[in-house]
């Protein structure tokens, strides 16, 4: 059933069938296999693209910005420290309204030096104007690259597709690689209205005074608002053609639930096993997986969590001095919404790649069930003190 491929290679195949035209990249563990496979595809003539080797991640994204600016469908990939080094260009990509897709393998930030998964690298890019997608399996990784271009090229904001280090990047599983001709039907060639063109000269990235800078930012926010509808619309169109369903969020066994577990990325996949075993014990619990973090799915969160008794958020990340980042955003999303709000518990788990098992997830749920209300904003799971 399907081809058995690594999460990293699912990215490469997603890029292949999206007919990406330029790739610039710098190697970093655990991302390197993505661009290694792409370089082979380009060398073998399987993918008609320009592959540029660069001297740093900053240059990788700068080069990608250049090719996107002249109207190419452009791709790069990175992880952790590499994404951090790109940060100046991360802001630039969104501000320049370039529909670049970047694959980020979620890896913990150093020090201590660590190559395993958590989300602090990509979540540090929260306020840059990039859309962010968090994947739970290799199929979703591949599909999200294709959908990323489809959405980005309509709203003119870049998309960051995140996959967990090792748990996806180096794990092989069944993946259906869609036929490129079928992808062509879904994703037409990129034809920007405005691009850098020597026959049609314009100014790009020029000085923007206090008199007009704010309007550019207003339009970025407007595009982000529009993106939510387009992600939903294109998810449905994707399902129509390829038979796989994607939206802003995903629900699992939420019908009749009194408690909702809210998780992202691969912990959300493992959590299904916990939900099944808790349901078998008669506990009325369901799962809400946050798939898209930017734009933030406020409407879906309110719809699923209102009138529930408790929400339990598991974060594989932390905003030091505050709390888990998804926890904070979910709590904030409710403040001005009318309705019966759940007690929201925020757990931090799995930092730096510490394994999160179905039993660990059930332990967090059981802990929240024992308590009337959360006593603090951070509850640490499995920390050795």
């Amino acid at each position, binding site marked *: *059933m*399907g*081809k*058995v491929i690594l999460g990293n290679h699912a990215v490469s195949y997603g890029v292949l069938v999206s007919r990406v035209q330029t790739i610039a990249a710098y190697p970093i563990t655990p991302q390197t296999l993505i661009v290694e496979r792409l370089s082979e595809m380009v060398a073998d003539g399987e993918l008609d693209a320009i592959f540029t080797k660069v001297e740093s991640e900053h240059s990788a994204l700068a080069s990608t910005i250049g090719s996107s600016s002249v109207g190419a469908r452009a791709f790069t990939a990175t992880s952790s420290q590499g994404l951090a080094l790109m940060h100046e260009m991360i802001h630039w990509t969104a501000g320049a309204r370039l529909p670049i897709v970047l694959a980020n393998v979620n890896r913990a930030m150093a020090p201590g030096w660590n*190559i*395993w998964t958590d989300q602090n690298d990509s979540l540090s890019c929260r306020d840059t104007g990039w859309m962010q997608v968090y994947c739970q399996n290799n199929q979703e990784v591949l599909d999200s690259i294709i959908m990323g271009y489809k959405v980005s090229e309509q709203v003119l904001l870049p998309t960051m597709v995140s996959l*967990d*280090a*090792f*748990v*996806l990047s*180096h*794990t*092989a*599983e*069944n993946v259906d690689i869609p036929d490129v001709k079928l992808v062509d039907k879904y994703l037409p060639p990129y034809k920007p209205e405005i691009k850098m063109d020597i026959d049609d000269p314009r100014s790009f990235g020029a000085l923007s005074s206090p008199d007009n800078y704010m309007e550019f930012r207003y339009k970025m926010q407007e595009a982000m608002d529009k993106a939510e509808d387009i992600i939903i619309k294109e998810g449905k169109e994707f399902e129509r053609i390829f038979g796989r369903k994607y939206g802003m969020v995903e629900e699992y066994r939420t019908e009749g639930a009194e408690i909702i577990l809210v998780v992202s990325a*691969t*912990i959300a*996949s*493992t959590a*299904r*096993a916990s939900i099944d075993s808790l349901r078998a014990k008669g506990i009325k619990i369901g799962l809400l997986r946050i798939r898209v973090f930017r734009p933030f799915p406020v409407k879906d969160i309110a719809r699923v969590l209102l009138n529930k008794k408790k929400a339990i958020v598991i974060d594989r990340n932390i905003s030091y001095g505050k709390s888990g980042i998804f926890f904070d955003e979910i709590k904030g999303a409710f403040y001005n919404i009318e309705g019966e709000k759940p007690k929201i518990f925020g757990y931090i788990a799995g930092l730096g*790649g510490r*394994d*999160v*098992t*179905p039993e*660990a997830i059930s332990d967090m749920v059981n802990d929240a069930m024992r308590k009337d209300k959360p006593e603090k904003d951070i509850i640490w799971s499995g920390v050795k003190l």
Partner: protein
Amino acid sequence: MIEILIHGRGGQGGVKASLSLASAAAKSGKYVQSFPEFGVERRGAPVKAFNRISDEPIVIRSKIYNPDHVVVLDHTLIQSINITEGLKKGGWIIINTNKKPGDFKEFCKNYKVATINAKEIALRNRLGSRAAPIVNTAILGAVIKVLKVSDKESLAIAIKEFVPVKREENVKAAYEAYDEVIFEGEA
């Protein structure tokens, strides 16, 4: 769902064996996962690779702590690590060795033992050298015979997909292991 742990030494091809096994099982209609011990690998040091094989889509993405079965690519590992750690009672231990299952009395009480002389089969098929035989493909023939997670034809296609050289010899080695694996009772 069954969970399999492959014990090997860095450089011995345990990860490739895990990938080929997953691919073979997928070709016979299963959902699969294959992953290495996440992190750094040193040549010669004990390393693990993991497989999940199921009739249903696999959602669990944590590591495997209680495998149903273990595969041992190098019998000298038995002296240096506890290969049965976490192994479920009644599970199979498939060992590359020139001994017979009855020679592993320490395992026979709680587990079932199958043995295969994968080294001899590898050398017979000119896979690797006497000092470093390539046993990772041969042992898969024994694995699918005992655990019934795939069939010979699917395994042959999978091996050809993941092995860059001597494809026919690797397939032949796997087929010979399929015929030569020694075990007692119902697999």
